């Protein structure tokens, strides 16, 4: 009798659960969005400034401007990076999310695969002034090749080599290195008396991925083939990862302690004069916060094997940045597009990118004198001539986790003094590749 009752209770619970799941996410199947509530929009911004509060202060007057122009009130929420992806996942799953949102551009293809975001086909691009207004590499970072992008580029960034002028002068180095051989040679000169040539964020998965992706390009290797299948163990990929980790293991120009860095300690080290070089995207404001004066450091393009950055094997940066997306099931589709148009307008692009220290992905805004300052010019040129987007595959975040972790473990081994050989690198990457589910 008791069992019967329990069974009945379980059955009831399953029925309820089935009812709930049945309509789970059902909101999205209706597709194209509507204009039911044309007077309001919800916007999730990512944290671009020095703090969430600062972001709110920066964006508030712009949203006000937008409201005056269109009569649409934008409800802003600045979502911390720690929460953003989980919030987006929950929103995607349940159909309960904002109208417009910022996404890290490396998530574009994954989110595109969910089908929850508005595709930016010709028609939609037309409504914000056309695809041609944007830098090609930035648009390429907004979704799978050959499909309408899932988002529109908003802020762009690229990697550059930051170097400490005083330390260079002291070591008798006159020019920043343009090739990896030069970087290693310079690094060896600089690495002495407790100081080191280069900094790295060994436990930061994304950063590991960014670096080995670019080095992979330079070895003519991609981590995915045309059909989107993982090819982590190609000779070029193995060589790229080994070259990166060898900077610590073999060349000894990176301090072993960097293997555990994941909270931008490499920037702190640089600002304190403990390391002479660091590869980073727009680090100026962080250096200032750490008490380093702008005249103390210089910027140069990230080295390439040939010495001249370009496309293909001369690639020296990934396309970093933030894209702006619209949820398909928005109740204010026209308003959402208007808002994207506003945020990507020349005037807003200049103003916001200037404030955040990033580069506008909008060509006309890029021409502004503000982005011709020495450090930003390097980023801008890299972006337009020698940057490539990370693989635009739906399982990009799996790639980041698998390969990023493999590199992290290799750093740990290098730091512990264990030998890093082609075989050990290949074994790690092989394991990473096998965890990739199709």
């Amino acid at each position, binding site marked *: 009798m008791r069992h019967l009752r329990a069974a009945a209770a379980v059955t009831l619970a399953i029925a309820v659960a089935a009812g709930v799941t049945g*309509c789970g996410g059902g909101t999205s199947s209706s597709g194209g969005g509507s204009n039911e509530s044309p007077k309001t929009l919800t916007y999730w911004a990512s944290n671009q400034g020095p703090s969430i509060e600062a972001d709110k202060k920066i964006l508030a007057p712009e949203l006000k401007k937008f409201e005056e122009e269109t009569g649409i009130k934008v409800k802003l929420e*600045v979502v911390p990076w720690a*929460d953003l992806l989980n919030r987006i996942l929950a929103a995607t*799953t*349940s*159909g309960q999310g904002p109208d417009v949102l910022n996404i890290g551009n490396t998530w574009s293809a994954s989110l595109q695969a969910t089908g929850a975001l508005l595709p930016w086909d010709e028609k939609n691009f037309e409504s914000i002034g056309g695809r041609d207004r944007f830098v090609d590499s930035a648009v390429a970072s907004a979704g799978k090749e050959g499909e309408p992008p899932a988002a529109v580029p908003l802020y762009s960034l690229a990697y550059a080599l930051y170097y400490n002028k005083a330390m260079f002068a002291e070591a008798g180095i006159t020019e920043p290195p343009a090739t990896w051989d030069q970087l290693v040679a310079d690094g060896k000169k600089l690495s002495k008396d407790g100081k080191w040539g280069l900094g790295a964020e060994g436990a930061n998965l994304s950063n590991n991925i960014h670096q080995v992706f670019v080095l992979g390009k330079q070895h003519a290797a991609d981590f995915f083939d045309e059909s989107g299948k993982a090819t982590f163990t190609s000779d070029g990929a193995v060589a790229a990862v080994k070259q990166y980790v060898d900077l610590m293991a073999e060349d000894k120009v990176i301090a072993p302690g960097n293997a555990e860095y994941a909270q931008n300690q490499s920037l702190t080290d640089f600002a304190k004069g403990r390391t002479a070089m660091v590869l980073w995207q727009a680090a100026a404001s962080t250096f200032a916060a750490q008490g380093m004066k702008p005249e103390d450091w210089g910027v140069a393009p990230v080295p390439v094997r040939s010495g001249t950055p370009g496309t293909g094997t001369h690639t020296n940066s990934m396309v970093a940045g933030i894209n702006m997306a619209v949820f398909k099931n928005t109740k204010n589709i026209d308003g959402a597009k208007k808002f994207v148009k506003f945020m990507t307008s020349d005037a807003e692009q200049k103003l916001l990118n200037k404030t955040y220290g990033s580069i506008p992905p909008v060509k006309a805004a890029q021409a502004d004198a503000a982005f011709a300052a020495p450090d930003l010019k390097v980023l801008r040129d890299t972006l337009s001539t020698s940057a490539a987007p990370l693989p635009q595959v739906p399982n990009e975040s799996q790639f980041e986790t698998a390969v990023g972790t493999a590199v992290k473990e290799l750093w740990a081994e290098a730091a512990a003094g264990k030998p890093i050989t082609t075989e050990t690198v290949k074994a790690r990457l092989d394991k990473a590749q096998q965890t990739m589910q199709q």
Partner: protein
Amino acid sequence: MPSPARSPMAAPQSFLWTRRVVLTLLAGFVLLPVYVMISSSLKPLQDVSGKFQWVPTRLTVQPYFDIWETVPLAEYFVNSLIVAGSATVLSVVIAVFSAYAVSRYSFRGKRVFTVTVLSTQMFPGILFLLPLFLIFVNIGNSTGLALYGSRGGLILTYLTFSLPFSIWMLIGYFDSIPKDLDEAAMVDGCGPIRALFRVVVPAAVPGIVAVSVYAFMTAWGEVLFASVMTNDATRTLAVGLQGYATQNDVYWNQVMAASLVVSVPVVAGFLLLQRYLVAGLTAGAVK
């Protein structure tokens, strides 16, 4: 509360020395991070991120002013207080009812209930985070009751988190209160509910305080569910503190300062409730 002296004889030296050593080591272990928090919160950022120093070379109280500017700390604090406070009160009331039923009545399904309640402690939170969010959204869509992103949803969630252990503890606690007491009250003409409130609850105050502290701390520290189920306006401290670590910078000194500031009221509350706590926490488990 009388503390039972173990022995009328003086404790031997071996015991006294063991006691000194053990307690000193434990106090050191506990206080070390607290010292680091305090000293780091009084350093400028450049010094915090440098080599560790026992004694700060430069002292500043600036972080204690900056914390309010970097994130809306006061708002988060109020949110946490509302969420944890409400969850605690509701959880305790509901646990009292359930524990009373289990302790004083025999009915069919009693064992199923207690076992099921215990088994909920075995679910990994990850397993039901997304389903729970879905349920809240669906309830919202069909009834207009906004549970996602609201404090209400979080309160419901947290109160349920602390419910199982609270019920278990209170069952044991109520069992240890002689049944004659509430039976006498019922003879006096009270219904069972009034007997509960007039006799059992007053006698169980220590246990109830203990359960309240547990329920409060459960809600106060939870990170995973809060990170997905709150928004700007309802974010709690547990997740809000992460706002001191941004993409490019970690404001170590401010994290520490903010943690200390928000912990002071909690620790103070603890100290006030301590006398009840000590008697209360285990009586339930003793059964």
